């Protein structure tokens, strides 16, 4: 009973979040569309509570709860950023005047539900719970993608997402079942380290017999992570879903959902290849997995950047850009070293700032122009200067130019790459950064390099303030990145 109560206390943030989702759903039913903004505010309040609970837990000793949930600082890091992203997305929904007010509770319900999925996904070493969290996130995401029921694009996005997501989840589940068959356990930390008597089917003895099944299983599980992170060749859903889904949902997918994939991948790789006592696995598979991840990184960033060059739709361009960024993040993972992981975690933090801001600006311009085509932005920079300058800051950060947080993240990734024998990959990434400048600045070009638009700009001061804060944060953390760096260091696996 004691253990049960302790366990419940440990997963209190998850419980509160689940309760919040239900409260939001009921509140919307009760309001009956009269005062839908209140539902949004309830969501924000609940998220603030969860954030507070999480903040108190940073630095706590890791503990395993119910044999499945791993409550540690690494998970708390990603959970905090997830809560922040869902909060910002909620503000986006609140500011979107074109969003319907009737039945908006489902929107928040699905978002918070997806967040619950993320919470469990990032805080477990047990593959079954990982699958459950991933599926919860995915199912909520499918519905969110198709949330604008009347729009053809939205429905198409949802359909494609379901099909692709189902396929990827199936492949991953098969890989997990293979791992179970080979080792007899679903717990990653046990799987890697247990040898001999206590665990007759540990991964290590398997290597003496036959390396192929283990390899196949690992690759299939990696496929599932690749799908969530939009890594080539599992990225095909990203452009269509990002373009078709409502912009706040796109923001959520691009930021929180991708981060969940990164976190789960870091845990997976970390548990299997970087824990002590797994020497044979590291020796045989370690550098191969590292090489595989490095090649995936190179292909992903190149394909993402080259495809983004020709995009006319802003959301589609940002979708391809997020594919490219998944490639950059993989550089840190591919090093299979602690500083590489730390660099990836730092880059995720930078990525949150940059992308939340960029998609927020997209949402703002979508409300103003009614479309998300880049050419419709012409001259709007002069009409909405504060937001456009913030957009330039985000674009500069996405390209990786100093003195922004995006540059510092890229610097850390490049440094870890060069330090661990991936200098060729760093070279590819550097070339890609230059290519990405072109399409990021096509937005800046449209905004500022044309005559001022005749279209009036919407005045949304609160929204502008939020974007200004994100913009300033992008610059501030580029000049003084230590706060995030120490945070990462405390939360490292």
């Amino acid at each position: 009973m004691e253990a049960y109560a302790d366990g419940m206390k440990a997963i209190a943030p998850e419980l509160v979040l689940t309760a919040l989702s239900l409260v939001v759903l009921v509140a919307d039913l009760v309001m009956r569309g009269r005062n839908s903004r209140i539902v949004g505010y309830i969501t924000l309040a609940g998220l603030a509570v969860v954030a507070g609970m999480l903040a108190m837990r940073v630095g706590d000793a890791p503990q395993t709860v119910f044999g499945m949930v791993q409550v540690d600082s690494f998970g708390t890091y990603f959970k905090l950023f997830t809560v922040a992203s869902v909060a910002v997305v909620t503000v986006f929904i609140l500011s979107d005047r074109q969003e319907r007010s009737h039945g908006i509770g489902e929107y928040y319900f699905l978002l918070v539900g997806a967040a619950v999925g993320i919470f469990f996904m990032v805080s477990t070493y047990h593959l079954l719970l990982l699958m459950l969290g991933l599926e919860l996130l995915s199912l909520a995401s499918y519905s969110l993608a198709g949330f604008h029921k009347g729009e053809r694009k939205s429905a198409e996005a949802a359909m494609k997402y379901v099909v692709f997501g189902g396929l990827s989840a199936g492949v991953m589940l098969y890989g997990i079942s293979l791992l179970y068959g080979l080792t007899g356990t679903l717990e990653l930390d046990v799987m890697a380290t247990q040898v001999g008597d206590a665990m007759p089917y540990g991964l290590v003895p398997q290597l003496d017999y036959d390396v192929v099944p283990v390899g196949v299983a690992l690759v299939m599980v990696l496929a599932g992570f690749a799908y969530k992170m939009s890594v080539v060749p599992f990225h095909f859903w990203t452009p269509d879903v990002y373009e078709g889904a409502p912009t706040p949902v796109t923001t959520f997918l691009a930021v929180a959902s991708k981060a969940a994939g990164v976190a789960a991948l870091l845990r997976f790789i970390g548990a299997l290849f970087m824990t002590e006592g797994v020497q044979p696995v590291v020796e045989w598979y370690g550098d191969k997995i590292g090489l595989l991840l490095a090649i995936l990184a190179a292909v992903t960033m190149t394909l993402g950047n080259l495809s983004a060059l020709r995009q006319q739709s802003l959301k589609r361009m940002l979708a391809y850009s997020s594919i490219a960024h998944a490639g950059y993040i993989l550089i840190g993972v591919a090093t299979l070293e602690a500083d590489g992981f730390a660099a990836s975690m730092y880059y995720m933090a930078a990525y949150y700032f940059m992308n939340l801001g960029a998609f927020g600006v997209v949402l703002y311009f979508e409300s103003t122009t009614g479309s998300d085509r880049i050419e419709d932005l012409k001259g709007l920079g002069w009409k909405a200067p504060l937001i456009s300058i913030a957009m330039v800051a985000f674009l500069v950060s996405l390209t990786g130019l100093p003195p922004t947080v995006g540059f510092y993240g890229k610097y850390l990734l490049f440094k870890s790459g060069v330090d661990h024998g991936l200098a060729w990959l760093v070279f590819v990434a550097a070339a890609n950064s230059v290519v990405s400048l072109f399409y990021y600045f096509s937005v800046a070009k449209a905004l500022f390099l044309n005559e001022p638009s005749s279209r009036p700009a919407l005045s949304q001061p609160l929204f502008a303030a939020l974007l200004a804060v994100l913009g300033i944060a992008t610059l501030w953390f580029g000049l003084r990145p230590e706060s995030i760096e120490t945070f990462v260091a405390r939360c490292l696996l």
Partner: protein
Amino acid sequence: MDNLLNLITFIPLLGMLVVCCLPKTATGLIKGVSLVATGIPLILATQLYFAYDPALGADGGYAHVLNVEWIGVIGANYYIGIDGISLPLVWLTTLLLFLGVPASFNIEKAQKAYYALLLLLEVGIIGVFISLDYFLFYVFWEIMLLPMYFLIGIWGGPRREYAAIKFFLYTLAGSVLMLIAIIALRLDSGTFSIPELVALAHNGQLTGASLPGGGELLGMSFYTWAFWFLFVGFAIKIPVFPFHTWLPDAHVQAPTPISVILAGILLKLGGYGLMRACFPILPVAFVENAYFLGILGAVSIVYGSFVALGQTDFKRMVAYSSVSHMGYVLLGTGALTIWGTDGAAMQMFAHGTSSAAMFLVVGVIYDRAHHRDLNGFGGLSQPMPVYWGMTTICFFAALGLPTMSGFIAEAMTLVGAFQSGDTRFQALVLFSVIGIVITAAFLLWAIQRVFLGPLNEKYKGYPDMNFREIFCMAPLLFLCVLLGVFPHLILDKMEPSITHLVNLLQSAAN
């Protein structure tokens, strides 16, 4: 704590923030604030210049040094200082940006944004010149790119968008190569501090041994690729043939004051970067490739002058003359002699003044005629005698007439290259002399086409240069003449630091 350098660097930033807070209709106030924000650094820099004791540079020392921890996690410090090489360039920056403000007074569109970006640009440029920490150097280096993109792209000519993005892409490509090299140097040596890196290199301790695989990349050894990556990054800025193709577009499309700053000081960042942060840190690779660099320099000189000869657009001609003049920098440094490097450093300053003046010259006539076709002018000496006189002085400075600073610079460079005792370099000098002749040719031909001959009726009523235009050009021409007659005013300050640099490089040759 000695704050002089900090003040010079960040007062423009303060000015920029003030300008941003002003309403966009208060154009007079905006211009006034900009004048003050660029004028104060000029005064401080002048004080800095006269107070600088050259003897400090004799053993590679720096003045007004400040070294505080910035990002402790990666070992990047806010490490600034000034020596004989950067001192004249810092002063030139403050001068050109101060003159750039009145030169911009006839810009009508979005003035608040313009002056804010201009002030931000100054911060970046001065920051590069005073940085002694490689990470800080890189951050300041990149900070310059964004304002330039907007300054060219918003206030430029008809093809400004193309020119702006071309400039940005080209320079960024060089910069990311620099970044990889900087990371590798940091990992190999454990420090970002440029003086420390130079010392380590001098002791032969910077060999890439600490990097995985001995620092090999793309089949090249650490020494080789680090040198070439850094070189390409800086060479793009200089610009050296064949990395110069961004320059004509950027210069021609940029508005006059921006061309002035681009030619006057931005190009010098490349030459300065090589002398400060590339050659002394990788001296062995530099010495091995010095002749090739000399070839690039000589080719730039001759190629730039020939292409300039063929231009009909006034501004494009001046742009290519910049390519030609900056070739002397590489030729002089590659020769590994004190006179050669002295000449190269002086050429940076001399070209800064003469080229800036040349772009102002083009700006004057473009403002009146709204075209730059050299063949479309004629006889302008009649309605605009003051303009004729100043342009002639300016062009004589550019072609390196004795009594002008350009002559001292080019002469020292060529003599220094000849002195190197290497017959190959002596052959390069003979080849480069062609460039001098062709430069004189196109400049004098331009004067003939624009000013002499029968007056084209269209231009009869053209007003002569007004006070503002004379105010912008006169100081530059005065400097050209002053340093041509009294070159010791600048050479005295530069000499010890340059001697130290050349000794460092020559010792690596052994």
